[in-house]
């Protein structure tokens, strides 16, 4: 599953690594279509920028995100050498926003990884096996779908306790159902196709058929779902941290920063404003790219 997430960032590399020439041209064509998609390219640029900020945070950050400037608490933008000002205790907002990218991306990647691998596995097994296994698994999906995402995530956090790792687990455990449904739908179609029948007739094991023949053909919708899923996961993390159920202070998480600023809204509205903008831009980036990938990879979705 990990490989497909990587593939969404560098489609051309993944395409080249896929092997047969026929496959190559599919990914190459998809990449060409994606490059013509202006909105998707804007999204890709935003995401690339945020990834770079996360990687090079210590180099580009103007200050340490935890160091307190006692002379300038709640300073408005520009005061005391702080470009976007400081938070209520005097920590540089630019630094905290930059380090916050690490939390958001980390949660996004791990939560989507959990959701995609769990959901894909369930979808593959349900679709390929059919019958009672399919029925049982899909009814389980129905049960999970009855809970609103954030409510179930909150319930899981209530059990596990609020911290970074548990937030990733909670979001992953909530988001897997979409993958299961979509992958199952794909498998139902693929299962009946001639090349799968041929593989079966040739005596290939079920596990090998699933991994070698079915999964590669179901990868396109998974990539699209994972991209949009990053946006959902980042918002979910911010929401949990905003409620105090996510990443705990003083670690800079955008949702947590937004929450910390609430008490100072009257005197220092910038503390809450900038983290919200950061979340919005990032989420917009993933939604843009997701839209483009949908058009480029799988017009049916």
């Amino acid at each position: 599953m990990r490989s497909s997430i990587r593939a969404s960032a560098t489609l051309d590399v993944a395409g080249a690594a896929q092997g047969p020439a026929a496959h190559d041209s599919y990914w190459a064509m998809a990449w060409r279509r994606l490059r013509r998609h202006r909105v998707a390219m804007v999204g890709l640029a935003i995401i690339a920028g945020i990834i770079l900020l996360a990687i090079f945070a210590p180099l580009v950050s103007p200050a340490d995100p935890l160091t307190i400037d006692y002379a300038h608490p709640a300073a408005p933008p520009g005061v005391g050498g702080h470009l976007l000002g400081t938070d209520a205790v005097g920590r540089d907002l630019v630094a905290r926003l930059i380090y916050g990218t690490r939390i958001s991306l980390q949660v996004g990647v791990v939560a989507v990884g959990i959701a995609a691998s769990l959901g894909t596995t369930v979808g593959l097994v349900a679709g390929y096996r059919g019958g009672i296994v399919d029925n049982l698994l899909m009814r389980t999906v129905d049960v999970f779908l009855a809970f609103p995402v954030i409510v179930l995530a909150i319930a899981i956090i209530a059990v596990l306790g609020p911290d970074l790792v548990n937030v990733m687990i909670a979001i992953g455990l909530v988001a897997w159902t979409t993958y299961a449904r979509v992958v199952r739908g794909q498998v139902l179609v693929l299962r009946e196709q001639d090349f799968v029948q041929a593989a079966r007739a040739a005596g290939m094991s079920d596990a090998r058929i699933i991994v070698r023949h079915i999964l590669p053909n179901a990868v396109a919708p998974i990539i699209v779902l994972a991209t949009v899923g990053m946006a959902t996961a980042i918002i979910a993390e911010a929401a949990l941290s905003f409620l105090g159920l996510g990443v705990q202070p003083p670690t800079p998480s955008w949702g947590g920063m937004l929450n910390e600023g609430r008490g100072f809204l009257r005197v220092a509205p910038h503390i809450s404003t900038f983290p919200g903008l950061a979340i919005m831009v990032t989420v917009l980036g993933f939604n843009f790219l997701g839209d483009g990938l949908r058009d480029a990879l799988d017009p049916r979705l």
Partner: protein
Amino acid sequence: MGRFIARRLLAMIPLLFGISLVIFTVLRLIPGDPVVIMIGAENASPDEVARLRRVLGLDQGIHIQYVRFLGRLVRGDLGMSLGADEPVSRLIRERLPATVELTLAAMTVALVIAIPIGVISAIRKYSALDTASTVVALLGISMPNFWLGVMLIFLFALRLGWLPASGRSEAVSAGVVTLVTTGNPAILITAITHLILPAVTLGAALAAVVTRLTRSSMLEVIGQDFVRTARAKGLPGRRIVFHHSLRNALIPVITVIGLEFGALLGGAVITETIFAWPGIGRLAIRSIVQRDFPVVQGVVLMIAIIRICANLTVDVVYALIDPRIRYA
């Protein structure tokens, strides 16, 4: 139709069974002894703990506990709150109307804004209004609603002072009753001013989704043969838009509204926290912080049930507005 509803209600039973099983299991996974949490570690003498375990039935096997839990559940007994020493069902009943009011208000705000804009965007495709609505909708989909809520409080409550920053006065329905019986609009006006900011916060994302969907759905319908026929035989434009196109275009919109209703309930948890709105969402968050698990369990169960009922309602409404859909 009656048979269809009956069958759908029957199908809810295994689903509810599954939901109760998930919630029950999650609750048993909590680290630490619930009895110790309940009476506090300092009061937890071994005798007292053992006695409470017997009283609560926690000394029984897990399968027996589940059956008992189910038995109480079908009688509407959700257990006692650990902190408030009140039945969970009463806590929920007291707060549910506030959540329902907020959710319905949010949905109204969303639809009143989104459907007209979506229709106009489709009719005047690529106009300035269409482009503007596309951009605003994309921002709306990507905007975290808690941030919008905080910004609205800053602008309309703190800066402009037009609306209250938080809390709920009376129910809007109570305000309407007073207005009708005594002719005094004061209570209704206060109730609505308290409701506006939370409703906009909660409804914004839905408005964005519905605008996009109405637009694309309308565009699809407008391109179809029967609309061209209607135009060809000289029907007035307004009649084509409302009678022929919109009616058909709203079908997918209604599906999405039903699906989004659950998301709206989830969003209400956050919105209620921001605006100190006394609904079940705030109750859930408070109970989690206080580790009052029977309440968490009750609220989550309640929300899941409401969501299933919403889905069922959507299916029925579906059949009512579109006679082509038959449920045999």
